[in-house]
């Protein structure tokens, strides 16, 4: 494993942050503290973290309706995220966005998105922008198996390939688009196979193995940055929770959910770090304690923050 210790520990910390954040959101939402609705990333932590770890702060990502994990993986602060979920003025987007629309361009986060597949052309545009500006930036585009059946996927991947754009398409294949198992609406098993049609490399990785995701994405990011063009990385993973909190999950066999929860990404990674002598159990516990503390503070921050003043509702519509 040729990955710097600092990077390995950062990946551990960020996966934990996502896990803690999402689990807390689950509870807060059930208690009626959060307005609207939320889609949780629990179980998919290794994908966002492994794909963002090779990126620089000014590299771009686009996210999805299930976006909290991507924002955290790219360096988003828990307190400002939580404040946004609470609809408070101190949130990343002043309470205007909410769970599905967190954006923070300073960290290259071009937005979670309420429209399935809408991030795909937007990320492609960011990559085109980086190329035109010769900035050396790369874009990572997160999307699900469902979005891969949208027209934007085809149009964007063709353009990115034709112009050798600096972009990595990261497909989070969690097997279901809401209730619809992918095999019912797609003949092929691996979405990565579609890369052949666009003349770009396609790779399938275990999306619950953060090192595997990192290695595949690192290679793809390096390739993109070098000017060699896009890659399609398909990460096989699973969401633990229903499509959104409050939905009754009638469509997934409980044994399947159980099996995937047993294959969760964090515990094996912890073991790996200890076995390889990267960190001691005590060191990992210290990281965990710090994350839990940060999480507590984030909730406090959000709770204490004011709601946006009503008159601000009409600000930001126009430049």
């Amino acid at each position: 494993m040729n990955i710097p210790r600092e990077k390995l520990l950062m990946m551990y910390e960020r996966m934990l942050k996502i896990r803690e954040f999402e689990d807390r959101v689950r509870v807060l939402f059930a208690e009626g503290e959060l307005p609207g609705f939320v889609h949780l990333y629990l179980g998919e932590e290794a994908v966002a973290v492994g794909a963002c770890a090779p990126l620089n702060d000014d590299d771009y990502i686009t996210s999805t309706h299930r976006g909290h994990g991507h924002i955290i993986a790219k360096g988003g602060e828990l307190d400002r995220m939580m404040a946004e979920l609470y609809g408070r003025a101190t949130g990343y987007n002043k309470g205007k966005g909410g769970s599905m629309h967190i954006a923070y361009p300073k960290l290259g986060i071009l937005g979670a998105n309420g429209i399935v597949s809408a991030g795909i052309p937007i990320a492609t545009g960011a990559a085109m922008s980086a190329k035109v500006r010769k900035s050396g930036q790369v874009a990572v585009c997160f999307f699900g198996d469902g979005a891969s059946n949208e027209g934007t996927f085809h149009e964007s991947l063709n353009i990115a390939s034709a112009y050798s754009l600096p972009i990595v398409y990261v497909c989070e294949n969690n097997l279901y688009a809401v209730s619809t198992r992918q095999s019912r609406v797609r003949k092929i098993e691996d979405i990565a196979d579609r890369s052949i049609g666009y003349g770009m490399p396609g790779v399938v990785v275990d999306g619950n193995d953060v090192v595997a995701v990192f290695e595949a994405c690192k290679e793809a990011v390096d390739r993109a940055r070098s000017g060699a063009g896009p890659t399609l990385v398909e990460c096989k993973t699973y969401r633990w929770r229903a499509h959104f909190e409050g939905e009754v999950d009638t469509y997934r066999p409980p044994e399947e959910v159980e099996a995937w929860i047993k294959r969760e990404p964090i515990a094996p990674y912890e073991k790996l770090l200890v076995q390889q002598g990267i960190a001691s159990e005590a060191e990992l516990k210290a990281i965990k304690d710090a994350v839990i503390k940060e999480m507590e503070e984030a909730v406090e921050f959000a709770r204490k923050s004011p709601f946006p003043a009503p008159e601000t509702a009409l600000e930001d519509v126009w430049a």
Partner: protein
Amino acid sequence: MRQLFYNQALGEALAEEMRRDKTVTLWGIDIGPYGGANGVTKGLWEEFGEARVIDTPVAELGYVGMGVGAAATGIRPVIELQFSDWITLPMEMIVNQAAKMRYMFGGILEMPLVIRAPIGGYLNAGAQHSNSFESWFAFVPGIKVVVPSTPYDAKGLLKTAIRDNNTVIFFEHKKLYGIKGEVPEEEYTIPFGEAAIRREGKDVTIVTYAYQTLRTLSVAEKLAKAGIDAEVIDLRTVKPMDETRILESVKKTHHLVVAQEIWKTCSVSSEVAALVAEQALDYLDGPIVRVTAKEAPVPFSPSLEEEVLPKEQDIYDAVLKTLGR
């Protein structure tokens, strides 16, 4: 009389039409075993099978476009969009294809296509899950636009939509799925272009539709306590629009308020106001007052959404304004 939820009434309309006409076929995402995100298609996959209740991939341009091709070739597709917000994706197929094909081709084919889509806010669902785009479609010749406010209307109008040989966009407000209302066991349909007078009154006409109908009726009761007798007209279909009932009412009350959920510019309320200004101006004894959303995307935070979307108090105040009180 029997009470049904709005979503059940819609489901019943689909089932009855599917039994009556073997060409009625449904598709959309999660409408099969799952029963649709709002429970409208519950039980239909079990009764009619997967050849007539088809789960599609997430591919709006594809599955709505497929509706155009199927409608032109002997099927009556009823397509469910899970949220109307992404009706933007298949816009090409609706506006440039479905709406125009009969006309461009000189009337030699039919376009019996129905697209059902949930609209509306007041759910803190954020800017991309709270839209109401009915005015876009009312603008286009060749498209009918339905906006039912009660379970009774939802069923009767959906049956009419399915039997219509034109493209019909059928907007269901999300706040209405869980409301109950009387729906008779017997077969009925409701013609397009006939508004419902939900409350008769003599002092002011309030024209509204969809979820705002419920809010307007509650305001009308408050107005009654203040000695103001409001007539509430529920459009039921914004295209065709029941011009006769609107004009007759205004000629009686001499005052017009239009209450809608979404933005003002070039909207349904613009059309109603223009109709009355063109054809009944001399009957008006006060300004036409419109109640609409403020012109911003519908924000997420409760404190902001409340500011942008119209409140019941806004309807009340609009009535006082047109009456000069």
